[in-house]
Each structure stands twice: as C-alpha cells, then as structure tokens.
C-alpha cells in the first residue's frame, strides 16, 4: 500500500494523497482543507485526525496561534435527534 492511499480521517476515509493534493492545489488553510475533503467531519468530530489534517494544511500555510485551526462544533458527542428533542423541550 502506498502512502497516498493511506487513510488519515478514519471516519470519512479521506486519504493522505487526497489531502496533500488538495492542500497543494488550493493552498488551503486547515479549515478549508477540511471542508473540501470532509476530513475531520465524520462521526468522531475530528478528535482523532485533527492534528494530521492540521499538519498537512500547515505545511504550506501559517498557523494562527491565537485561533483553533479546526473549529469544534457542538454537539461534541453525537446525539440522536430524538434525544436532543427530549432535552430542549
């Protein structure tokens, strides 16, 4: 198996090759890279792959040390809509 086919985002099965190619083509920030590839947008909320996605984008762009590169979105643990409904009622 080559590195290009290696999975980075385990949830969405986004590969290293796809990420590196997208980052190079668009000169993406980490956030853009995530939106373009779906890496880090899966079930786990990017907890596992965020550092890897970050590093690929930051190979070409600068890190803003005062801003989290890959934002967190609630809910940070998946909640089924039924349950959400119960809670907010």
């Amino acid at each position, binding site marked *: *198996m080559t590195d290009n*086919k290696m999975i980075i985002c385990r949830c969405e099965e986004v590969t*290293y090759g796809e990420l590196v190619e997208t980052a190079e083509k668009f000169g993406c920030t980490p956030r853009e890279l995530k939106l373009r590839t779906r890496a880090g947008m899966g079930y786990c909320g990017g907890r596992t792959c965020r550092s890897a996605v970050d590093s690929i984008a930051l190979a070409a762009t600068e890190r803003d040390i005062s801003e989290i590169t890959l934002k967190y979105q609630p809910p940070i643990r998946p909640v089924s809509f039924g349950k959400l409904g119960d809670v907010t009622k």
Partner: protein
Amino acid sequence: MGKVIIIGAGPAGLSAAITIAEKGLDVLVIDEYMVGGGRLLGQLYEEPNGNWWNGIKESKSLVERAKNAGVEIQLHTPVSNIERIDDEWVIYTESEVHYTSHLLLATGAAETPLPIPGWTLPGVMSVGAAQVMTNVQRVKPGNRGVIVGVNVLSSAIAMELKIANIDVACITLPKMNIPTEKSADPMEVMNSLLHVSHMAPSAFVKLGSKLMTNDFMKRMGITFFPKNGVKMWDIPIMLRKAVVEIYGDGKVEGVKIATISPSGEVVAGTEENISADFVCIAGGLYPLAELAAVAGCPFYHIEELGGYVPLHNEQMQTPVEGLYVAGNITGIEGAKVAISQGVTAGLAIANDVLGGGLESNIQQAIADIETTRDNAYIQFHPEVKEGKRKLQQYWEEHQNKSVAITL
C-alpha cells in the same frame, strides 16, 4: 445557590470536587467513562523511592474521598454541549440538562495519531488503549505487539505491558510523512528522549548522557545507533528503523519495517516483516479542550503544553465568566500536577461562590503546583515551564486589551 458542576472525573476534576465539597458546597461531577479516575486509572510505575504509583488505587481513594465529602458523581454520562445563557451555564447530557453558575472543565487529554498504511486494521490501537486494556480492563491487547512512536508515554506503557507479561517485539519509529514528521526523525526523537533517561536503566542512560554533550555527538550517536536498537527492559528501542506498513487480512498479522537514514528516509531494499497481533500507535497527547472551545473561550497554541490550550490565569479561571479549567486540558503533564491544579481551581471556585476568604489558600495551592511540577516523575515536555510562562503572558495581554476596550 445551586451546585458547582465539574466535567471530568479524572484526578483534576475529583480533587477539585473534594476541595469544593469540603468548603460546604454542593458539587456534581459528570463523566462518560464507566469508572471514576480518568486516565489516572491506567497508570502504573515504580517511583525512584521504590513505591508503586498504582493508578487504580489512587483513583479509588480519590473517588472514596469525594463521596465521603458529599460529592455526587454521575458516570456513563457524555456531555455533548455547554453554553452560557443569561448568567448561567447550561450543560447538555444525553438525558438531562444541568445549570450552574460555576463550571469546571477537567476533560483531560486525547492522543495524537501517527497515520501509517494499514492503521485501520483491527488490532491497531493507540498506546493508551493498550494501557487501559491491560491495566484497567485486564485483558491482553494481544500476544505480541509492536509500538510505533518512541516517547515518554510509549516507554512507560511498554514497561506496563512487560509487567503484565505481554510480549513487545520492539518500539520503533513511524515512516516519515507530513503528520508523522517529528516522530519519525531520529534526531528529534533522540533529543526528546534525553529528558526521560531517568526512566530507563543503564544502556539508555549511558548512551543518552554520552550523546547529550553536543550536536556533533548526537549526530554520531544516531549514525552509529545500533541497527537492532538498544534494549530497555529487554525491549529493543529502534531509532534507525521505521514501520512502513501494517499488514494483515482482516486483522493485524504483522508490520513491515525498514532501516532509515539518520534523517529518517527509508533505505530501499531493507524491508523485513515482524509478526505481531497488535500494534500500538504513540503519537503523544494534546489537551482535550473541545468544550472550552464551544463555550467561546480564547485559545493559544503552545507547543510546550501539547497544542491549543484555553486561556486561563494562575487560579485556573478563564476569561469567560464562571468557566474554570484544570488538569491536562491546560497542558500535558502527569496526574500529580493535575491534582494540584484541581485543588487550586476548587479553591478559586469556592472563594468566588463564598465571596472571598480563601485568598491565602489559593496562593499556597498555586505554589504547590510549582513544587509538584518540579518534582514530577513524568514530564511530557522538557520546557513545560516555559509554556506556562507564555500562557501567563498571553493572559496579561488579554487582560490589558479588555481593560483598554472597557475604558
């Protein structure tokens, strides 16, 4: 007056809870794991004085003390969101919503992966996963493992596996790619290992202190580093080999390793297979601060602390009203530091709720964090103090800015 809520029943959260409850306040601790203690549960090592640091026992005693002090602990409860509405924090769990004026986030750390071809196969797990399986759940992660990533945590856990009579074939580096860059560079790894040499017996210490002297010697050390590694607790540590692939049909059957140059490039034609039924990935830890982020807390990236940390002062208070942080969410350190930070946060919260009177206790607690840090057995980053200094500076800048805006 409602109760103080703490998210995370690790050493930081529990010690904060005890501190607050002992001041006569109501406390609720919420955690998604099945037992209290957090990542302290899996820890096991012999301290220089010969005592064993037994995470299970330490956790039990913290939980016991918390219960005796009247703390309510709710396990099996993931918190999915928090938000500030009017002058209260709203905490969302699957089944309930809680409200509090004072919220402490003590959610600890998460592991950074080292992506390697084949790493989604069953049997590949983070090194912390193997620790929890072995020491907490007491099931062998497998019969023979390979640990990828050479650092403090992987060395500590390799020894724990060994104690539990689980065979570790070797600890070695990952193949270099963008995400693994630093963990795959033999020189970098050698440098970062020198400050853990106290954990490793003879061979490594000797080698380490010899190489300590200067860059030239380090380069020589890496160049002549024995291809089959130096042994630590009988486990070969191989800084001149890297795992290029994990293979197996439906589950791990082994890893393909290759010799690497002093700067980490694979030497063609040197690949060989090592059979194993489990692989541990050890890419290090980063503060798990997702709840602080959704709460709108400012963040700073501080390498020495392990990544993005929520801005906070010495009293563990963030600039967001009623929001406190303690433990590894503020930077990666050992459990004893987390405990001291928990006490400090607990005192700061109690002081605020009670309207003052605990100022000198807080000062003492802050000083205790320093002492604990200085005496720490495990240090994840040699420059953690520098990281804390940077954070303090960011805090001051932030305060000055807010003052300027209000004026």
